[in-house]
């Protein structure tokens, strides 16, 4: 019940917002803020009450939805879901505050769509039924499309449609795989979309789902769907375009939460449901056995080098996201406790840090009305607070120990190293290049002689600081006490890796 409340409160908020008159903009903003605050409070409640000692799903609600196809409204959370729901709920109000002044036209539609988006994201992380999972996945697509396409920058239509079609392409493959799984799950009438049931069936010896060949194909179907979302090379080119055109708050959600939907899906479906398929791509015995780790490595190095070449501040941050998501992929490919925990932690921390980065880019853009890194210079002497916060965010993002970005990255690498020595060592190139592009940007924007054009650039204001401070505090707090988040999911991760090892072991023993 609590979970459903949390998921649908934003949707209720959307209805309320739609009923409000178009002119009362302040009221609309406040109502939206309220309706994004409620999930945050509930998320904090979940964070406190969540039982960390078990991997079993909690706060379960399971209601029959479409009886004919055995589709249920089944929601519940484990350590991974609760972590990401917390992230989503946290970024909600921050994005609303960040949109307070920047959205000039159609605030009503904007806020309504934003609330719908939040429901989609929260529902996605809680869904325990494959069909429901898919519905929520698609539910995030439409609002995002309009938010970029209507309130975006000059090339918004191109970016929005590219985003939409690309994700659609991925989700169609996912749909195909999903239906295949459904059809294979049993005889007509006994078929199911229920994720826990499917996970159990997929590891049951002799079941149709427990076939290597079948698992490889459905694994690929889901994988491509999620890979577009992460995004994994070579499916990533929608991301820089979408980011550059999206308004600040939408970039924050995009980088902060939407990318995590991809990696969350990889863990929830690809890893948990298809251990044999996973094994094919992560067993480290031949080329295909290295492929997932290889993709992680490519993301890290390729993303970092591309970021180094960017001169648009926002595009640089977007490419840095590609690089950082590579660490998640690499950690998952390790499929051991350390690697998977590192990957999940990296998801959360990247959500926080990239949100900060996009907010910071927005602050500068609102003042200078451009994002060309080379046209700034010496801003540090005019905006000391802004410079301080940016330095914090950059340092967190480049993985400075003591800040949150380091822990996830380090654990992912440590985990991956146990399995893929060479690839992991090569991936550390990304750490150096990551430092290079952030420090170079820091120098070009903030250090050196003040560019006379920005003689009167105003310091960051209170509202902007308000959006950044909670994230900044989290970055430091989780850098010093990472177990606050790790404890949430460590039991779930151990359970996952154990059942993976078991399923793969059993299958191989029977060969």
């Amino acid at each position, binding site marked *: 019940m609590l979970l459903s409340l949390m998921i649908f409160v934003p949707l209720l908020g959307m209805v309320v917002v739609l009923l409000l008159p178009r002119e009362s903009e302040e009221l609309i903003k406040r109502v939206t803020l309220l309706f994004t605050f409620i999930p945050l409070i509930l998320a904090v409640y979940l964070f406190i009450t969540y039982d960390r000692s078990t991997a079993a799903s909690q706060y379960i609600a399971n209601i029959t939805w479409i009886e004919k196809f055995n589709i249920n409204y089944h929601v519940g959370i484990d350590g991974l879901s609760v972590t990401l729901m917390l992230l989503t709920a946290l970024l909600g109000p921050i994005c609303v505050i960040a949109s307070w002044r920047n959205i000039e036209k159609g605030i009503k539609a904007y806020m309504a769509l934003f609330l719908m988006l939040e429901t989609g994201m929260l529902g996605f992380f809680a869904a325990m039924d494959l069909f429901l999972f898919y519905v929520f996945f698609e539910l995030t697509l439409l609002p995002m499309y309009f938010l970029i396409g209507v309130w975006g920058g000059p090339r918004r239509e191109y970016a929005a449609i590219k985003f939409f079609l690309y994700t659609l392409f991925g989700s169609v493959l996912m749909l195909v795989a999903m239906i295949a799984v459904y059809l294979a799950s049993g005889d007509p009438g006994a078929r199911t979309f229920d994720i826990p049931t499917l996970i159990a069936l997929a590891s049951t010896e002799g079941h149709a789902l427990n076939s290597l060949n079948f698992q490889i194909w459905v694994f690929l179907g889901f994988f491509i769907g999620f890979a577009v979302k992460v995004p994994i090379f070579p499916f990533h080119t929608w991301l820089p375009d979408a980011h550059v055109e999206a308004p600040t708050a939408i970039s924050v959600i995009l980088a902060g939460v939407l990318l995590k939907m991809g990696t969350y899906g990889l863990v929830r479906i690809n890893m948990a449901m298809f251990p044999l398929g996973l094994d094919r791509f992560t067993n480290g015995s031949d080329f295909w056995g290295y492929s997932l780790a290889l993709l992680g490595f490519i993301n890290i190095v390729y993303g970092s080098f591309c970021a180094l070449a960017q001169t648009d501040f926002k595009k640089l941050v977007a490419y840095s996201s590609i690089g950082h998501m590579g660490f998640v992929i690499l950690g998952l490919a390790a499929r051991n406790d350390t690697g998977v925990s590192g990957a999940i932690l990296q998801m959360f921390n990247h959500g926080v840090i990239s949100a900060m980065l996009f907010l910071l880019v927005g602050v500068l853009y609102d003042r200078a009305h451009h994002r060309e890194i080379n046209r700034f210079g010496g801003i540090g002497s005019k905006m000391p607070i802004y410079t301080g916060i940016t330095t914090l965010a950059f340092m967190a993002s480049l993985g400075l*120990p003591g800040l949150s970005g380091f822990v996830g990255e380090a654990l992912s690498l440590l985990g991956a190293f146990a399995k893929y020595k060479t690839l992991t060592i090569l991936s550390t190139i990304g750490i150096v290049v990551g430092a290079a592009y952030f420090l170079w940007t820091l120098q070009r924007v903030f*250090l050196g002689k003040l560019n006379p054009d920005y003689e009167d650039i105003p310091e960051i204001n209170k509202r902007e600081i308000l959006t950044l401070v909670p994230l900044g505090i989290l970055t430091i707090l989780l850098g010093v006490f990472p177990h606050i988040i790790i404890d949430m999911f460590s039991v779930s991760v151990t359970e996952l890796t154990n059942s993976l090892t078991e399923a793969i072991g059993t299958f191989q023993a029977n060969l």
Partner: protein
Amino acid sequence: MVVLISIILLAPLTAFAVYALLGLANKGNPRQDVLSTFAMLAAFICSILLFWQIDPKPVPLTIDWISLGSITFSMGFYLDSVTVIMLIVVTLVSSLVHIFSMGYMHGDPRYPRFFAFLSLFSFSMLFLVVSDNLLGIYIGWELVGLCSYLLIGFWFEKDSAANACKKAFLTTRVGDVGMFVGMMMLFTKFKTLSLYDGANAGIFTLVEGLSGTGDMLWLSVAGILIFCGAVGKSAQVPLHTWLPDAMEGPTPVSALIHAATMVAAGVYLTARMFPILTTSSSLVIAYVGGITAIVAATIAIVRFDIKRVLAYSTVSQLGFMMLAIGAGSYVAGLFHLTTHAFFKALLFLGSGSVIHAFHAMHTHHDEEHTDDANHEHDDHSLVHEHGSEIPPDQDMRNMGGLRRKMPFTFITMLIATLSISGVPFIFSGFWSKDKILGGVLERAMEWNSIHHYILFVIALIAAGITAFYMFRLIFMTFFGEPKNQEMHEMAHESPWVMTVPLLVLAFLSFPVVNHLWFNKDFVKPPMQHHIHAPEHAQVLPDSKTHNTEFSLAFLGVSEANAAEGEENGHDSAHGADGHHGHSPAHTIAMILSIIVAGFGILLSWLFYHKRRLSAEAVSTTFRPVYNLFWNKYYFDEFYDGVLVALTVWKSRLYAQFDGSVVDGIVNGVGTVTRDVFAAFTGFFDNSVVDGIVNRIAEVTWTIGGRIRRIQTGAIQTYLFVVIGGIVLIILIFRVL
């Protein structure tokens, strides 16, 4: 003990936090200097108290930091004699630098920020020192790097400073990545990053279980990779180029971070990792140290910027320390670390005092860089500018005859110079350097190892050069006639806040204090189980019992060494620090080191004081050698011209590939798909052809709020694709 260590760590951290919080609220803290200085003094007092409390046995305090299934990363403190010595050195030098800065930085527009950064640095450094595990050390390690970055770039309006701080961070990060890979290797093998035994066995215990050649190779590689971190941080060749550029930071920073503490952290790390060093990794460390010692020393003799001379001198001295540890002289390396911390901090602060004297207006930045103003912004590149003009107030060619104007600065700097040059018996530097030279020679004789003979000769030459360039600095700065009358007129002795720290450090350059702790086996080397004498080595079991050294009982040195000798006598084959003044090696080394130091000073006197010899003539005669030294062996040219340029070129290539090929394919697929759909559904209007995916937008979607139409379009497409998908499934199932 827990209370003391908490105060030591939290006092400077609190000082920084106060600044950060007030800064966020847009209120400055005008008295940050007092706050930071008191925090540091409190930490110093607590360190002294710890020194008296320290048990001979180490006291571990550990908590679980991260637990993942079966793996636990713990964080904890480890206190032994070495830790406490480091704590005292760091807090003492830091306190003195804080006090000095009150004078030196007075009037700077970002005066409070400077002290806040110093506090953050001190916290990070202390955290590094007391950590009992590699992860904790790594955290402190990177945080000191951050502070170094912030402080080198403190006057960030100067392009040279902005370049230097970036270079420092990136260069050290290259080393740090190596260190991280080394950590991953150790972790993969041992499932822990704790060094000492806690709830579970630590690395130093587990490593004893290793044997066999495969394990040894693996351990050697891990050791060398960890050492990479030290190469970066302690500015060893080939990652040394950032340290001279780091002199762009305010001089107190150079004294604290880039001479006494942070750069010594690499030596400290290497010493901490002593138990895992194998014969081959030790030899690599020794060679890197030896080469660094001589390369940096030769560069130092041709520099004119007073701070650069000192910077290269630091690099060279750090090389000595690394050489000592690599050669197995653990105690000698750490001993030199502490003596060097004091006299080098003194030399830097002294040079700061000189610069300050030449720079009475307190405008440390801006003015001399007006020619940079027309620097175009687009010109910022990853390629660093170097060989840039020396600021006039740091150019030794503008100095001379300052000894009468600045008596305190002169006397104290002279003491430090005598110490670093190795003038015998009454200066601390002599003892520590002699221990290093003796240790290397002893290892050479003990193992009959040609490598160590070579290293000994290198170190001896470097020691002679050290004496030469240090006296060159003294003669050029304080003796002779003033070269620049106008600047000389302006020069004045610095205020007491600056001279008092100089006097304290000068006092510490005498052996009194340093010998207190490197005495009576307060510091004992850990066992090195993996060091084996080379096969051909002839271990002389009686090499310990010679009794021919100088009797310097008044300094307590010989007793200490005697005790150590007996302790380690039975362990000599394992080579755990078998250095002591008794062996002939130490006697020979001592005599030779006195000779080379004397020779270096004599030459310097002939060149730069008496002017009997002409430096210009020599440099003309040996033009190619001079050019090599002057151009710093072309390291910067290689890095900027090749490595950085390649990286930037590669990044542009990747970005272009991304834009044209990867995205091109995406857009191409988009076009084809759209055309197929268009043919199929007839929904798309083919009349407008401009752009690729854009066209879909133009057709399906007009901005004027016609949302309904786009929805229809999208959903039709959507349905079409869904149906297509279902058809595909059926096909697949037929095939299966």
